[in-house]
Structure formats: C-alpha cells, structure tokens
C-alpha cells in the first residue's frame, strides 16, 4: 500500500506542475483562497481568462474525447490536475456545473451541429451553463416539477419557475427539465431542453442566502419560446435525460475544501482558558477533537480508496457515497462547537481568531446538509443502492400528474 503515483501519473503531475508554475501563482499556504465573492464581476472575468488558458493547454476536461477538446484520459489524470491546481491562486467554480453536468448531457442528446456550436465555447470559458431542475414545489422529489412546456407549431412555449439555480445570474445557457404531459404519471410526462438564458421571457432573480451570499437564483419563465431543435432526448423521456445529468454529478470526485478543520480547532482549544486550564486539556474537548479527526481522516482516506480504483482503471465502489453524509454535519457541528469554546464572544465576527471562519462553517453547514441531496435523501440512496433495501412506497407512482393531491 502506498499513496504514490504510477510512473505515468508522476510524469503527468510533473508536466502539470511545470505548466501551472509558468502560468499561475503558487499559494503561500494551503488555506489561501483566490475567491472572495462569487458575484464579483472582476472575478468572473479572471475566471474566464483562466479557463481559456487551461482549455488552450488541454487541461480543462482531460477525460473528454479529443474531438471535444479533451485528451480521452483516465479520470485519475483529471483528479491529479485538480489536486495540483488547488495549490495555486486561481479562480475556480464557475464552470463546474456546465462542464460537469450540462455539457455531458448535451453530448448524450444534442445534434452534432449543436455540439459543434456549444461545446468549445463552454470548455474555453466563453459561455457558462446552468442546470434548471429544482422548483419551489419539487426539491428532493425533483420529478414533481410543474414548469410546463407546450407545443406551439414547430416549437415549444415554457411557463413556470425554477429555484436554487446556481450561477443562473452569470450563465449564458441552461438545460431545463419541463412537464410536457400532465395527464400521465409524473416520471413519464417530462421533457428536457436547452435554452439561452437571454431568451425573451427568462427572468433571473438572485436569492440572498442565510449566509449573506447570493450564489443561486430563482428563474422565471413567462411564455418563453424555443424551437423543437433544442429538445434533448425524446418527448416524455426527460427523466432519463435528467438521470444522465445526475449520474455525471456523481462521477465528479470531491476534493478537500481547504476550510477550517481540526488543526484550527486545536489551535483555538490551546488558546482558550477554561476553569481547569486550557481547553485542550479538557477531556470533553479532547473527545470531540478526536471524533472529528477520525472523521476528517476517514473522509480523506475514503477518497484515496476511490482514487485507487480510478488509478487502476476500475469502477470505484460505493464508499464515496458516505462523504457528504459525514462532511456536512461535521462542518455544522464543529463550527458550533468552536463558537462555544469562544464563550459569549463566539457570536462576534471580530476579536477572536478564526471566529469568522467557524461561524461561516456553522452557517454554511446548514446549507451544505441540503444542497445536492439532503442528508435524508443520501441515506435513502445508501440504503437502496448499497444495501439493497426497498425503495419507499410511492403513492404517486401510477397516478396521472394532474390528479395528484386530489386523491
């Protein structure tokens, strides 16, 4: 057992490092971050420039086929590139949804002409894509969406509302799942399209989050007309297309966020005076630190097991399905615990070292437990797909969508 690269991987890592050294600034320490706020217009411009550079050098999507600007490489090389890139001060995050989910869905369903038109600008950071799935009445139960698409001559007219759409406010295009037939059960009446976010009738309103940030949006559709050529997959087979998108989400191997962790908590515990001395000497505090260290290590090492499978060209096991189930509550609980160590000053955003960081985790953790699959849905997924337990009884499964709620 070892954490070493194969000779091929090591050579690639060296190549990547040399390229990054020549084109970006190395972080002075691993907690340093380029990103201040997602909605800073200069940040977006810089991110687009960096993406263009990366794409020109062939590093933007290593696993994609060569015809789409990739290298047809193994997923492990993509991971190695990301590991190395994380050590440099570069703006990231704007293109993950588009390149990780939307464009792969396009590759599965769009015409060759559309692919020729859209893939390259997305890869080079010229156009950004978003994913228009969730709705106010359809979160975990995403197949329950109500946004309608109705036939109108050789096109479609879309009316409805999407919500929690990350990056819609700076996106140029989106893939959207709509209901085209409410008279059949919910999974059967869906159809997927793509559209320009500048199409008349599309209105984006940022949502201010509890954390103060505004990374996602409500998107309203009022008589939005699109041609039938922008349909992805067959009419009524939108759920199948949506699963393609979500499968691609699961292929993305998560990387450490570089946020505050056990090291900073220990630092805080060393500097905090309790009745019987420094908090780090208190057995309750030590017990909590130990638990989170075991989780932190467990997550990192579980990722290594997944990477091992990728490195050997195998399909990873289901072990990575635990990562968000553990990481999200850990973030929330550790943030709250660190604030408690600070005493009454734990509520203040100044004075106490790391206070802001731990408060951000406590606040952000509440969102992280919901985003991209709630704690509860993820446990259902583990129970059903890993342990083979039965799916929930679905009372709406065979009921026409427009009869739901009227039983």
């Amino acid at each position, binding site marked *: 057992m070892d954490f070493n690269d194969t000779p091929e991987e090591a050579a690639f890592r060296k190549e990547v490092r040399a390229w990054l050294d020549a084109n970006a600034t190395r972080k002075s320490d691993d907690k340093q971050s380029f990103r201040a706020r997602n909605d800073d217009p200069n940040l977006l411009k810089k991110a687009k420039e960096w993406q263009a550079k990366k794409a020109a050098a062939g590093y933007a999507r290593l696993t994609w086929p060569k015809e789409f600007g990739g290298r047809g490489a193994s997923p492990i090389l993509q991971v190695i590139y990301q590991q190395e890139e994380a050590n440099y001060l570069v703006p990231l995050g704007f293109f993950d949804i588009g390149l990780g989910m939307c464009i792969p869905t396009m590759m599965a369903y769009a015409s060759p002409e559309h692919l020729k038109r859209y893939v390259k600008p997305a890869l080079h950071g010229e156009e950004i894509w978003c994913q228009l799935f969730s709705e106010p009445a359809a979160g975990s139960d995403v197949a329950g969406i109500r946004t309608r698409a109705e036939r109108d001559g050789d096109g479609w007219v879309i009316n409805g509302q999407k919500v929690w759409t990350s990056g819609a406010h700076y996106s140029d295009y989106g893939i959207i799942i709509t209901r085209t037939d409410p008279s059949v059960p919910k999974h059967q009446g869906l159809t997927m399209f793509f559209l320009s976010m500048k199409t008349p009738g599309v209105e984006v309103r940022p949502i201010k989050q509890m954390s103060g940030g505004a990374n996602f949006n409500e998107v309203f559709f009022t008589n939005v007309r699109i041609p039938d050529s922008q349909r992805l997959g067959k009419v009524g087979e939108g759920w199948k297309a949506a699963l393609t998108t979500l499968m691609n989400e699961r292929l993305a191997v998560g990387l450490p966020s570089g946020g505050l962790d056990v090291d900073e908590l220990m630092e805080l515990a060393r500097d905090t005076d309790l009745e019987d001395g420094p908090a780090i000497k208190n*057995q309750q505090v030590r017990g909590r630190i130990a638990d989170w260290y075991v989780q932190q290590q467990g997550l990192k*090492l*579980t990722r290594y097991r997944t990477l091992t499978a990728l490195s050997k060209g195998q399909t990873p096991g289901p072990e990575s399905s635990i990562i968000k189930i553990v990481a999200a509550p850990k973030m929330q609980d550790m943030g709250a615990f660190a604030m408690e160590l600070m005493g009454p000053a734990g509520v203040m955003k100044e004075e106490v070292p790391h206070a802001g960081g731990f408060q951000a985790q406590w606040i952000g953790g509440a969102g992280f437990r919901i985003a991209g699959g709630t704690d509860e849905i993820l446990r259902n997924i583990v129970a059903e797909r890993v*342990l083979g337990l039965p799916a929930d009884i679905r009372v709406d499964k065979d009921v026409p969508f427009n009869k739901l709620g009227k039983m």
Partner: protein
Amino acid sequence: MNFDFSDDQKLLKEQVRKFLADKCPTKVVRRVLDGNEAFADEVWKGLVELGVPATGIPEAYGGLGLSPLELCVVAEEIGRAAAPVPFDSSVVLATEALKLAGSEAQKKKWLPELAAGKAIGTLAVAEGAQPPRPRNIRTMFGGGKLNGKKVPVIDGDAATFAIVLANTGGQGDRAVSLVLVDLAQSSVKKRRVETIDPARKHAELSFDGASAELLGAEGEGWRLLERLYDAAAVYFAFAQVGGAEAAMWMARDYALQRQAFGRAIGSYQAIKHKLADCYVKLELARSNAYYGAMMLTDGGADLPLAAAAARIAATEAYDFAAKENIQTHGGIGFTWEADTQFHYRRARVMALSLGGPMAWKDKLVTRLEQKNAA
C-alpha cells in the same frame, strides 16, 4: 495511488472467509457460548493448518514471514465470523509482543510453537476493577519469581504461556515490566471467570512464586505495552470491521424479510437510515483501518495516530452495528436463540480489551499535539 490490498491478499482473505463460513457458522459460536469448551478446537486446528498463526511470524522462526497486511485481512474474516478461537490473544497480542520485545532465545523457543499452533499465548494486564496504570499494578516480579493475580485474562485457561505486566520496583511509568511466564507450573493457578461473552473464555491467573523471565528490558513494560497496543489496535480494527459488516448485513437481511404494517420493515426510513448509518461508520472505520495497516507495514512514523484513529472508528462502527442489529430484529433479536447476541457481546469485549474509546481519544489528541509540536 495504491490504497488497497493486493489481489493475492484478497485471495487469502477469500480463502479464510470460505473456510470460516464452512467450518465456523454461527452454530459453532453458539456451541462455545453455551458450553464449557475453552474455544472451538476444530476451527482452531483448521486455521493452524491454513497457516493463520504462522502468518506474521518470520520464516527464521518457523512462520510464513508474511506482512502485516496479510494478517489484517485474516483478522477481518475472524471478526466477521465472530470465531471463538484464540486469535486476538495468541496470534495478535502474544505473537506481536514476542516479535516486539523478545530476546533471541525467547523468540526461538516460543515463535515456532506459536506458528505450529502447539503453544497458545495470551497477555495479562488487568488486575480487577481499575483500568490498569503503572501505579496500580500489584503483581510483583523479582529474583525470577512472579507473584500476584491477573484478571480478566482472555484465553487464560487455554493458554500455555502468558506475557504479564508486573511491577519491578521502578519509578513512575518505569515501575512496570513485561514478564514471560510458562503457565505449566504448579505455582500457577487458573480459574475461569464469567464474562459478558462466554464464546471467548476468560480466566483469573494467580502466580505464587512462579518462575518467569523479563520480556524486554526492566522498567520498559509500559512503553512496550503502548507499542504493542498500537499494533494490536490495527489488527483489532480489522476484526471489528469484519464484525460490524456481518452485523450490518444480518440486520439488512432481516429487514428485507420481516413484514410489519403490510410491508418489509426495510422499506421504512427509520430502518433504512439506521442501516445507512451503519454503512457510513463502517466505511469510515475501514478507511482508517487501511491506513493503520499501511503504517504498520512500512514502520510508518504515523502509526501511533493511525492506530488510534483506526481503533476509535472501528470500535464505534462495531458497537453501533451490533446494537442496531438487535434493534432491527425487535423482540426476537433479544432472545437467546437469536444470533444477534454474538456480535453485541464480542463488540464490547473488543472495545474494552485494549482500553476503551475514551482512553484512545485522549491518546489520539496527545499524539496529535506531539505531531503538531514537532
């Protein structure tokens, strides 16, 4: 990145798994639990034939000279079967203690016997109610003679020799030494004691001027014990992972079959989420155990931290899976006839035998402080 066992190691694991599935089904665990035998003799003999006790012993001492990784995969299968055999006592603790601290003569005498399954060793540390510390060890060793009482000692009555933590008169942590004692002497008395897990027999060992010899240097007992426990923690973690996985699947199988309110109880989220949590804890434990195995193999500097993390995660995973297995079974899971009790009992025995989670968490943070200071 190569953070996995090799194909050969997986093959060995499969071999041990098949053997135990065939020769050590739960009815064998029940037989030992209900009966008077010290351990399942026929299972142990089979494991000896497979070379299990010889796995980690160097070839020069009659062993197979395999790496810790091989012993880790074997440990996982022993744990999965909850096998009633002297694996943790003899194959892990006594064998590793001899490898760690034994003189050439001691290794030459005992390791070939252990490898061939002719000797069974054990480790005798506790002396009743208090968690053992250097200052409360009353068993005395001096002038080649051992006096005192050790209880509970796992496999104490079946063991042919014991490694005993004894007071040798030094100061502080240096008050204690490891002592090797042949148990086939009239000055040694064995009395079986009842424990929560009758499938693994424990005894009280009384020494009344028994002939014994130092294992390792005088005054080094506590330091050697800590090092021994780090290695043992990794092997135990694999056994606990195996047990946790078995308990989880036992609960899952029952949840699929048992109907309530018109459907399988495994379709209710209260059960699904509980079993998903078993899986989450199991995978955290498995990943931490793998790192422990890796550090054990390379003599890695990170072993003390890795071993503590593996121990904590595996203890929690096994305890949780074992108790939620009973809960998933409902009333039938609380009967003597049900197989659920085996893992519930074994999980607790394994949790306490090297010191419980509270002690290991304290140790882990101490080691983390030392690492950060370095």
